[in-house]
């Protein structure tokens, strides 16, 4: 399967439908090459990809910051160009860069966003949001008096100011301390309980692994794969067991042909790859077969391929 041919079956309750989305910047650079993707209502979706993959471009188009070159996007059934008001009303965006005003107070800047989205004043809601982000004590502080982490919190509060159905977090944990990271994940989980869809971009695998329901991998402007995280983990999350042999082997003996084996370290190590989730892993029979073939080992180790291995594998395959 070529990545550009990647297609997903249409989900019945997609909150965002992206179809054939492409972006060629004025420089001529093709940042997105026909991305088709559906985000399900209420899920946490991680868009995973290295720097420059096109994550921010994708988000920026959905949110109205960048004009698409081709393709369509619908948010909650509303086209982002023709029906931009309703599409944008549904979305909250926490941008990658720390872009905040300087002289406004925290409370005012959050209220400002609410106004921009056409929502009536609601100090109680703003208070609740600020409290959930540990910003309530800072409500009367000017934004420029805050630390970087606090500014990030302000951006999140602003994104939530109009009670969006969909929240975009663009590299939310880049340069963020542990406390904020924890708070943020707690908040994301709380939001999901209330039915909010969360889409986060990251190039940290652990983040996708820890948080997401589904993961999409993007590289060079192409969506390489979209998969339930658990399915992805079990499908591609294969396990390896390596036997360090007492006597190096020239080749794998024919009696072991039935096993998925690879010889390494100049014949000194035999690696068996298997599906850890399968009912029969075949390890027992392999060890039996090794003894019968007169192969003894001094040590063995097992390794679970993480999302990171999967990701690196996919990206390498593409390059």
């Amino acid at each position, binding site marked *: 399967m070529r990545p550009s041919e990647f297609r997903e079956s249409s989900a019945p309750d997609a909150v965002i439908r992206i179809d054939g989305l492409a972006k060629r910047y004025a420089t001529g650079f093709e940042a997105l090459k026909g991305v088709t993707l559906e985000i399900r209502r209420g899920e946490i979706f991680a868009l995973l990809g290295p720097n420059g993959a096109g994550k921010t471009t994708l988000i920026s188009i959905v949110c*109205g910051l*960048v004009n698409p070159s081709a393709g369509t996007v619908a948010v909650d059934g509303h086209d982002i160009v023709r029906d931009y008001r309703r599409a944008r009303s549904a979305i909250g965006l926490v941008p990658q860069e720390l872009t905040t005003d300087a002289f406004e107070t925290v409370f005012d800047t959050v209220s400002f966003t609410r106004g921009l989205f056409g929502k009536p004043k609601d100090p109680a809601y703003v208070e609740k949001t600020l409290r959930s982000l540990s910003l309530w004590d800072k409500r009367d502080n000017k934004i420029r008096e805050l630390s970087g982490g606090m500014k990030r919190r302000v951006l999140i509060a602003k994104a939530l100011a109009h009670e969006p159905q969909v929240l975009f977090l663009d590299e939310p944990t880049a340069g963020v301390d542990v406390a904020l990271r924890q708070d943020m994940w707690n908040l994301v989980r709380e939001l999901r309980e209330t039915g909010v869809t969360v889409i986060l971009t990251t190039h940290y695998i652990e983040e996708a692994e820890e948080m997401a329901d589904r993961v999409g991998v993007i590289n060079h402007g192409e969506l390489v794969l979209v998969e339930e995280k658990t399915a992805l983990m079990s499908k591609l999350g294969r396990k390896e067991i390596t036997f360090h042999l007492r006597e190096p082997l020239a080749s794998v003996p024919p009696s072991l042909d039935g096993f998925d084996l690879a010889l390494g370290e100049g014949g000194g190590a035999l690696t068996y790859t298997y599906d850890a989730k399968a009912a029969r892993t075949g390890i027992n029979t392999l060890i039996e077969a090794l003894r019968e073939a007169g192969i003894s080992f001094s040590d063995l180790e097992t390794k679970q391929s993480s999302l990171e291995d999967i990701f690196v594998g996919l990206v390498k395959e593409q390059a």
Partner: protein
Amino acid sequence: MNWRAVGAIYGFEMARWRRTLLQSVVSPVISTSLYFVVFGAAIGSAITAIDGVSYGAYIVPGLVMLTLLTQSISNASFGIYFPRFSGTIYEILSAPVSPVEIVLGYVGAAATKSVILGLIILATASLFVPLRIDHPFVMILFLLLTAATFSLFGFLIGIWADGFEKLQLVPLLIVTPLTFLGGSFYSIKMLPPFWETVSLFNPVVYLVSGFRWSFFGQSDVGVAISLAMTGLFLVLCLATVAWIFRTGYRLKA
């Protein structure tokens, strides 16, 4: 219409102004007062009345226009340039706000500020020279029209500029010369015929002339032509703004 968004942007811009109210108001008042001391009192006493109006009073409409133009442009251009520069524009662009609403918020606030300042300058002037306003409604009309038009023009500069230098460039290289050569301090009838004709290509001439007519009932150009020219410039600016939002020029990649 998303009126709450218009209100939010307008309120944001007015709050920004209030934070620096002292310097925003004091510096134009001081510079205008200096003009009066120099041109009105010191030099003006040596200049005969123009069209039957004492020189000190004659320059008042031009001075108010000068303030109105420069303040409208600088307020509106900075108002939209700064979010572009700092990146906070993302919020406006990702909000369910139409171009009309964005313009109403930014340009409305800039125009409000400059009208307030224009009135303050007028009040300051009345301390130096006896003033009469023959056509107060026309005066208010010109005040509003000019403030709106040049705030819109400033908004365009703020979108076009890609650096702080460019932000200063247009006001410095174009607007200030046009204002000084636009008959703020003299009647273009006092110029040699050739330069009088050249002056008619200067849009500021029409503004100052029409505005002065509302005070003294005298003008270099007919008041109807003045209004028409101001209206034309307004339409030009509106068309350009509409084009910018349609294409995303300098706002969206």
